[in-house]
């Protein structure tokens, strides 16, 4: 049940490819640690690819929000890519869909980051 996570770089943007479940005690901790690790290395343009995330609970949603605010507070940008229908619906219900910058195409997502 643990979350899979891999990291890659494209045009100065760090993409975290997530898969599985982002839930309390499992994926949420991995996500938090990964984002913090990136920020500690000065990597502040972060794209979370959620295309393989089939489940997220309220803790996972909270971790997405925390990651977003943490990155933003450090002058960075965190965006979401390829939401599954369930994750999309959950973000809609919790009114977070318009908070995040959600993309459904990787190329346009990368192009949308500030060129600072």
């Amino acid at each position, binding site marked *: *049940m643990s979350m899979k996570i891999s990291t890659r770089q494209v045009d100065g943007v760090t993409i975290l490819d997530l898969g599985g479940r982002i*839930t*309390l*005690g*499992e994926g949420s901790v991995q996500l938090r640690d990964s984002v913090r690790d990136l920020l500690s290395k000065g990597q502040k343009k972060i794209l979370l690819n959620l295309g393989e995330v089939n*489940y997220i*609970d*309220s*803790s996972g*949603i*909270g*971790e997405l*929000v*925390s990651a*977003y*605010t943490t990155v933003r507070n450090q002058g960075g940008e965190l965006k979401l890519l390829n939401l599954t229908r*369930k994750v999309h*619906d*959950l973000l809609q*219900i*919790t*009114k*977070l869909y318009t*908070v995040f910058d959600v993309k459904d195409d990787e190329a346009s997502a990368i192009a949308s980051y500030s060129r600072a």
Partner: protein
Amino acid sequence: MLDITRHQQANFAYGQCEPLNAPFQSEEEHLTGQQASRISYTLDSSLDSVNKVEQTAEQVARKAGVDEDEIFRISMAVREAAVNAVLHGNAYDPEKHMTASFENTGSSLVIRITDEGKGLDPSTLPDPLAPENLLRGSGRGIFLIRSFMDEVHFRQLHPGTELTLIKHLGSAPTA
């Protein structure tokens, strides 16, 4: 109005009566002469217990014949209730337990989750949709439970809280 027995109905009234199930049952019970069946567990305060409760909810919902989307909503709501019990109620205390019961009355799925914590007053919970709370890192569990279930009832057990989640079978999707 729920289509349930009078005995069960009395126990569903908010803030009244004793829990329907004995606290330490851990077996599946088949109520004589009815289509209803009941499963109940007493579990420790761990994430493994949360996962077990979630899996049971999924199995019960699937057995009840609801569609996949509804199975997802029910199992997620139950998971959120179990997380509340283990994390916020019992604070992972190994001395405290969570109980989970699952009942199919024929017309409804009735799931009860209890903890042994200091109690929860749902009226004090902040609205996660309020603009000032939108970027909080927590506080959405009860909201999701209410979004996905047809009825949600809180009962103070002194100590602890009992959360009753009800899904009417054959009802339209709640979210």
